[in-house]
Structures are given as C-alpha cells and as structure tokens.
C-alpha cells in the first residue's frame, strides 16, 4: 500500500478524521469483545433463586448475583397521579432476586451517570424501590389500596452517602458556605434537639444516625406512604460510574402489612433520577411483574 501523505489526495482534516475512525474502530472492537466476555444472561421471567444462608441483601458485588439471569423491567413515567413525571429518565431496571425461604433479596441495576446523593434545596437523590403485595387479592401497583396495603423497600443514594461518608450535613451540601453556629455547641444535646424539628419529632428523613440506606414502608394508595414500625430491610448501593447497582432485601414475615412470600407472587418497581429532579410521585415505575420464589427443593 502506497503511503498517503496529507498533500496527496487527502486533507489534513480528513486525515485526522480517518485516524479517529481507526481508533474508534479499535476501541469498538474491544468493547464488543468486552461485552461478549461479560454478557449477562437474560430471562423473561423473574425467579427468586433459592440460596443457602443469608441472601446478599446488602452486597451488590456478591458472586451469587452473577450466577443468575437478569430480568429486564421497562419503566414508564408515573402519570396516574399528580404531580406526574413528564419525561422518562430511567428507561429500565435490570433485576435479579435470591431468597432463603425467610428473606428475599433483589439486585437492581440501572443507567444513570449523574450521581445524585445529596438532599438539599432543589437537589434530589437517586433512588429505587421494590413493591410487594401483602394480600392474596392483588392491590393496585400504584401504591396499594384500602384494605390491601403494599410493602415497599426503598433505597436512597443520600442515605447510602450517610452510611458511606458519615451523616451528610448542610456543610456537605454547601461546602463553600459559611455555616451558622450549631445549637449543640451552645447547649446540651437534648436542649439543642428542639432546633431540629424533623429530628425532634423522629422523622426518619431527618435521622442523625443512619443504620441502613433503605426505608421500609407501607402504603394504601397515593400519598399514604408510612414507615413500618418494624424495620427489617437492609441494602447497599454502589455507583459504577455509569449507573447504580443496588442490593436490597427484607424478611418475608407476613402480617401487619408485610410481604409473606409465596411461590407465585408479584413484584413492582420504581426508580428516581435525582439529577432530573425526580422525587416522590415524579418517578418512573413498572406495574406488577410475576415473581416466582423458588424453595429449597427447586
């Protein structure tokens, strides 16, 4: 092949373009090879595989997750109740599940390169939630209904940050701001508590001590979300740079608005992208999916 010079039938710009194309092709080939090497098995039916011992409810990197296929759940913007989400910011979730007969765990993965894990004025967190039925008669996936509550486990990036980096404060949200004097530096902690109304009344959003990045909730319709008295849910999320990988799980206890687990049941999902101002009802969600929970003998 005759060497081609820039002044011999190809412009400098064209040369650069050609070179870039070669580089891109090379990278592309590598990407294809990488993709083939790590290609995940997919399934069109969500099965919670039985596992001995505790399922990896708080370990998104547990190797057992890699042994089961991914169930792809397409999401749609919530447009049943106001306020609605007008755009689709998280198109789908990749879901896997494991259980040991007493606890059920999910691994949820989705694309969102913009990590949002600070709660502050006009700033919202990334989040994901699993919704489970509590009655044999299936309630509306849209937050349950009277007499048929749903059991929800929601993971939040901001709560994960509380655990990974310590309770995030106003100084973390606004590192360049001159912070005010903290009441607790001037008085006993019990006296200072009144200056943090959300903390004082025990609102979980305000909690100073965070043990889990997940919240365990019950609901009987839009706007009825309430924290469960008995919290058994655990979880952990890691941001991969391109999206989130979140493990969460809870006990299948049944009773008092809790999921009991049964071989054939349903599960629904929701996801929020904080960088797109998703919060509350401004979310994308999926209606009930079939969920088969394998027992020990399966």
């Amino acid at each position: 092949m005759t060497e081609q010079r820039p002044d011999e039938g190809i412009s400098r710009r064209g040369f650069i373009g050609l070179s870039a194309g070669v580089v891109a092709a090379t990278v592309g080939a590598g990407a294809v090879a990488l993709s083939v090497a790590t290609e995940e098995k997919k399934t069109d039916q969500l099965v919670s595989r039985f596992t001995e011992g505790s399922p990896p409810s708080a370990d998104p990197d547990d190797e057992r997750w890699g042994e089961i296929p991914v169930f792809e759940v397409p999401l749609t913007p919530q447009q049943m109740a106001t306020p609605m989400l007008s755009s689709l910011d998280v198109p789908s979730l990749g879901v896997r599940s494991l259980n040991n007969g007493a606890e059920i765990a999910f691994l949820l993965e989705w694309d969102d390169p913009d990590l949002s894990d600070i709660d502050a004025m006009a700033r919202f967190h990334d989040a994901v939630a699993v919704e489970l039925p509590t009655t044999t008669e299936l309630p509306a996936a849209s937050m349950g209904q009277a007499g048929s509550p749903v059991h929800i486990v929601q993971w939040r990036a901001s709560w994960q940050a509380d655990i990974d980096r310590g309770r995030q404060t106003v100084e973390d949200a606004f590192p360049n701001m001159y912070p005010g004097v903290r009441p607790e530096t001037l008085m006993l902690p019990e006296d200072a508590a009144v200056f943090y109304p959300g903390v004082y009344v025990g609102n979980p959003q305000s909690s100073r001590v965070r043990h889990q990045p997940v919240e365990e909730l019950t609901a009987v319709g839009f706007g009825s979300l309430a924290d469960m008295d008995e919290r058994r849910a655990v979880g952990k999320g890691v941001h991969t740079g391109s999206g989130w990988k979140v493990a969460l799980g809870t006990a299948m206890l049944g009773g008092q608005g809790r999921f009991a687990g049964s071989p054939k049941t349903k599960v629904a999902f929701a996801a929020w992208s904080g960088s797109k101002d998703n919060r509350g009802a401004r979310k994308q969600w999926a209606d009930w999916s079939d969920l088969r929970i394998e027992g020990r003998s399966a």
Partner: protein
Amino acid sequence: MADVYNWQLGRKMQYQYEEHRPKRQVAYVFDPNKCIACQTCTIACKQTWTWGAGQEYMLWNNVETKPYGFFPTGWDVMLMALLGPGEWQNGVYQGKTVFEAAPEGERVQGWLPDDNDWSHPNLGEDEPLGVAAQGTYIADTPHDMWFHYMPRICNHCTYPGCLAACPRQAIYKREEDGIVLVDQERCRGYQECTRGCPYKKVFFNNETRVSEKCIACFPKVEEGIMPQCVTSCIGRIRMMGFIGGPDEEPDPTNPLDYMIRVKKIALPLYPQAGTEPNVYYIPPIHVDPSYLHQLFGPGVEQAIETYSTTKTDDELLGLMMLFGCTDRILHSFDVRDRIAHGYDDKGEEIVSVPLDEPTFIRDYFDEVHGNYLMNVP
C-alpha cells in the same frame, strides 16, 4: 379539583380541595408607608425560629425593596410570567390562578428556586425605579422615581398553594386559627410545597431534609399574643388579628375587618395567584399606581384615598395609633373622645392611646440658665 369561592377575586375558582374555612382566620395588616426596612422583624423571627443548622438561608420574615428586590431572586417576576396577563373587570379577576394555570400533570403552576436564587436576600435593596436628574425635586405623590419596602411573611392563605401541591397532605391549615403548618413528622422533603407556594415562603431544611415555614408564632397566638415580627416592629407598621369570612358581615369593631373589609385600606399581595392570602398591605402612596395594581389588584386608588383621610378620621386614626401599642391581640377597638381603646376576646380593655399626644412648647430662651433651647416634638 373543587369549585371554591375566593372573595379577593370576586369569583369562584378551582382548588385541589373543597372550600373549608377555619373557625377564625389569622390575618395581618402591614403598612409599607411606615416601613424603613430596618429588618428588626427579620432578625426577631430568625433569632426565634431559624437559627439552627440547615436553616441558614431561611427568612420566614424578610423585607425586600420593590421593584428590584426579591427573596428568592425574581419570585414575583416568575409568578407573573407563569400566570401570564390577567385583567380585572369590575373587581372580578379574569385571568388564571396558579391552580387554574397548572399544566397537565401538575397540581399548581409553580417553580422551584435553586440555591443561587436563595443567595441574595439583599438584592435590589434601596434601588429606585428611575434615575434622578440633577436638581430633581419630588413635590407630590405618586413620585416619578420610587422604591418601597415590602415586608413579607407566609400569608397563611385560605387556599394555600403549598398545601395543594403536597401530594402527602403533610401541610395542614389549623381549624382554630387558619395557621398553615408543615407536619414535621409527615413531610418527606419532596419540596413540592416550595415549588407550589407563589410567595416562596416554604423552605427546605438542608439539615433535617424536610420543609419548614412560618408558623405565625402559634405558641404566642395561642396565648393571645401577637407574633414576634409584629411585636418587634419598631416602626409599628404591623397589626395581627383575625378576619371574618366572606359569608359574615364585616365587623367594624374588629380591627382587621375594619381595615380590610370596611375601610378597604389594606389589600392582599398578588391576589391573582388565587390563594386568598391573609397578609394585607396598605399600598405605599408614593408609588406608581400601575405597579401597585399588579401587586395588590383593584382597589389601590380607593385604599390610598381613604388612607390619606386618616388624620381627619378619628376612628381610622385611632386604629392606626393602636398599631404597636400592645403585644396582645386586639379583638375589638373603639375611639371615644379622641382616645383609642383596644380590647381582648373577652371585651376587657388591653390598651388605650390618645389621638393627641400631650405637648409642651418651651420658650426658646431659658432665662434661668441664659441659653437657647431647641424644641423637639
């Protein structure tokens, strides 16, 4: 959505919930003509309620300079832009409220300020509209160039935008006095309330991650005492009390009813938003009426005209003299023999104020000490 009656608009309007008025409604009258923007009210409120961590930017009470001052930046400019033009015809608002203008999928037509919008509480302070030429002398009202101070708190609206916007019913209006509060246990920090309040008087606490707002100093109000911003006002520009509902005859002995519904010297701020706000303003007399129309709706000229008769109207003058004369909430008042009297809810007299201050004019020369004296009123 329900059909509810908004007397400030002179018509029914659409709202998220059925019309339900509290047993009595807390209301305020502010007189910007007397406000000097000393921010004593702002500091009194801040020191009482919002000096904790996470509340740094919160000013449940602020005083901004109009037309160029805002907190948060451009709050009312944004409101006007979102509502679009709206005419008044014979006292009836023809435009859309924040509820009626809400797009598909929204409860309220609103917007959410970001941290930068909350970063300039003094923006536009003392900036006048217009430029004074060399030798300008302002001889009459309204002035050719002007600014005025606008003290602002939560309006404890009859139809609160924040309450309508919250999908969790975490905001409620108290039956006993109409004070609007955020339930600190129920709030999940969605900030829909901040987005939905046209006056931007609900604030997200960056530390507790739930929203907070002016509570009308309800622990004081429950004891029959006016809120901090009222009792701390050194200019005596504020009065707090209770206003009657539109289905009740105005009570001329009730100070708030008298100023708002009988004399009509005090007008709601941006009534076109549709929330039926319960803080009323005596329009600043030196300001261009076309601007005041935008702020206070129709009735501006009449309010200013009536206000200008205060010095010859014993009853009105007496009530003006009662501003800032007591910490206690006045439920009724009267003026007899040029003395204004204020009463509590049991009819017991709380305070009396003479319309004529006793004065003594000294001789300008003190013969005893052999020096000249200055008489200061």
